[in-house]
């Protein structure tokens, strides 16, 4: 077992498992699990409101995690870091609150056909509420939204551009910095779905110069149920709250209320402090491994998987021909075998992959495949995992179609 897998109890307990569904969720290292357990053993209380020492400890744990997240993505201020449950919730906050702030009838919202349903349905809803139009960007054959495509689709009515940073199906990375600059010149606000990017790419929100950036903790080694919305203060301050009640209030009388300052305005109800502590530990974990190592290993694994799958004439790979552009995500089909059958037969060989539409049905139809298999790697995977995948692909093909 490689030394990185050794950090993960699930890997230690399942030595024959090739876990290649990291784009769905990553496994959790001891460091994260222990940090969450220690929080509940030593520091648990309801943060922000308690007037006693333990509550202060919980508050410190919660706010120190926020500081760490702000530094991790280079946000200017920690008030710009809003805790959520996951990227989906973050994206819903943007689509709900920002659209209330800026959208008028006949305005346009621009998203890409590659969006996860979580960055698509909220905008469909926002467009309906405000009688606005939802306009789509289409990628080139490498899965990239070109500056030409953006320029062609932007109009004076385009108020919001919401785009995935890395596609959860094609693994393609968009040049957010370049696209955001073009959008901003058009006075279009830019929101980015970073759920599939932050596990693989060092994020600097100031360099990208996006106005919002959403991500989940659980895809970057943290527990499920904690996510982040980064937003520029100028917008977050003007946006109406999303959920209400709990610590998000300032003053309440029978008919009206005023709201708390940022970031609390967007954090209704008792928060997931254990999750925040886990996310903080996950950031420590990723920094101790280092993005250089993460990128180097994932690129090599992606290249090996891409090269080996390409040798099989009955396998179709979606997206770029260059495995380095996939960020460890390879969507493919085995000719004549449905992805659900592939995933079940993979499972019987201890290979965990995803099969289906990957919460991106419009993209699937655009790719004319409806469903596909997806193998997604993290740095803790190794060459043996990839060989196990390839052997299983060959077995499944012969099981259905003979040798």
């Amino acid at each position, binding site marked *: 077992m490689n030394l990185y897998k050794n950090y993960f109890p699930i890997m230690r307990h399942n030595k024959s498992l090739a876990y290649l569904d990291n784009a769905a969720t990553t496994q959790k290292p001891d460091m994260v699990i222990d940090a969450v357990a220690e929080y509940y053993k030593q520091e648990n209380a309801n943060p922000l409101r308690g007037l006693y020492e333990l509550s202060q400890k919980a508050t410190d744990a919660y706010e120190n995690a926020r500081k760490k997240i702000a530094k991790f993505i280079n946000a200017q201020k920690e008030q710009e870091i809003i805790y959520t449950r996951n990227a989906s919730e973050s994206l819903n906050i943007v689509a709900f609150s920002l659209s209330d702030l800026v959208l008028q009838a006949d305005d346009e919202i621009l998203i890409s056909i590659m969006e996860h349903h979580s960055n698509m349905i909220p905008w469909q809803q926002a467009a309906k509420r405000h009688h606005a139009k939802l306009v789509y960007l289409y990628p080139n054959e490498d899965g990239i939204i070109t500056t030409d495509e953006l320029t062609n689709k932007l109009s004076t009515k385009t108020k919001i551009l919401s785009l995935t940073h890395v596609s959860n199906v094609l693994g393609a990375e968009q040049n957010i910095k370049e696209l955001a600059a073009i959008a901003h010149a058009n006075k279009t606000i830019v929101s980015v779905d970073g759920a599939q990017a932050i596990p693989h790419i060092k994020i600097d929100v100031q360099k990208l110069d996006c106005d919002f950036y959403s991500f989940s903790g659980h895809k970057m080694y943290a527990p499920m149920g904690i996510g982040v919305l980064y937003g520029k203060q100028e917008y977050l301050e003007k946006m109406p709250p999303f959920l209400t009640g709990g610590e998000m209030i300032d003053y309440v009388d029978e008919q009206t209320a005023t709201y708390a300052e940022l970031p609390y305005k967007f954090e209704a109800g008792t928060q997931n402090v254990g999750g925040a502590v886990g996310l903080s530990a996950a950031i420590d974990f990723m920094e101790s491994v280092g993005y250089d190592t993460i990128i180097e290993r994932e690129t090599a694994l992606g290249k090996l998987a891409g090269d080996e799958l390409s040798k099989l004439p009955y396998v179709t790979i979606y997206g770029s021909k260059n495995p380095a552009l996939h960020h460890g995500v390879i969507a493919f089909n085995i000719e004549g*075998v*449905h*992805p*659900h*059958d592939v995933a*079940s*037969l993979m499972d*019987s060989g201890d290979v965990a992959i995803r*099969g*289906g*539409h990957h919460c991106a*049905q419009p993209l*699937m139809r655009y790719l004319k495949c*409806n*469903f596909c298999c997806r193998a997604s790697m993290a740095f803790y995977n190794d060459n043996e995992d990839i060989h196990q995948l390839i052997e299983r692909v060959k077995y499944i093909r012969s*099981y*259905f179609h003979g040798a």
Partner: protein
Amino acid sequence: MALNNIYNDILMEHNTHPDHKHKLSNASDCQTAINPQCESDAILVKKGINPSCGDEIVLEINVEDGIIKDVAFDGQGCAVSQASTDIMADLVIGKTIDEAIEFTDLFIKMVRGEETDEDKLEELDEALALKDIAHMPARVKCAVLAWHTLNQMLTDKQKN
């Protein structure tokens, strides 16, 4: 669990050579969607969708005098859903609406692990080959797609 319990000869045969994968109605509109005009007094058409995986089948049945004369299907899906549909068609052709509804209820109970009485399950004939799907919860929905769809069609027919 040994996977060849699921991907057994019966399932693989029905998946590779389905007898009932064709059309009963003639209208070309009927290929992809439900169109009320495709339905006649005798032929009922219903689309079944598995929202979690995107599998779609269009089921057509020809009912005369309360007897299911013929069943056909079209659409995309995994081997489990395709074979399950074809096996179901074999089973219910020639049966009354009431009998077919009972079969669908029994099958759904079997794959959910709610009915394990071997004597009762014998009635399902080749559909018994899908019994071990009960051990693969993620695939139960694939196996039941056609049976749910047929159950709804026949229940609606009875109401009308």
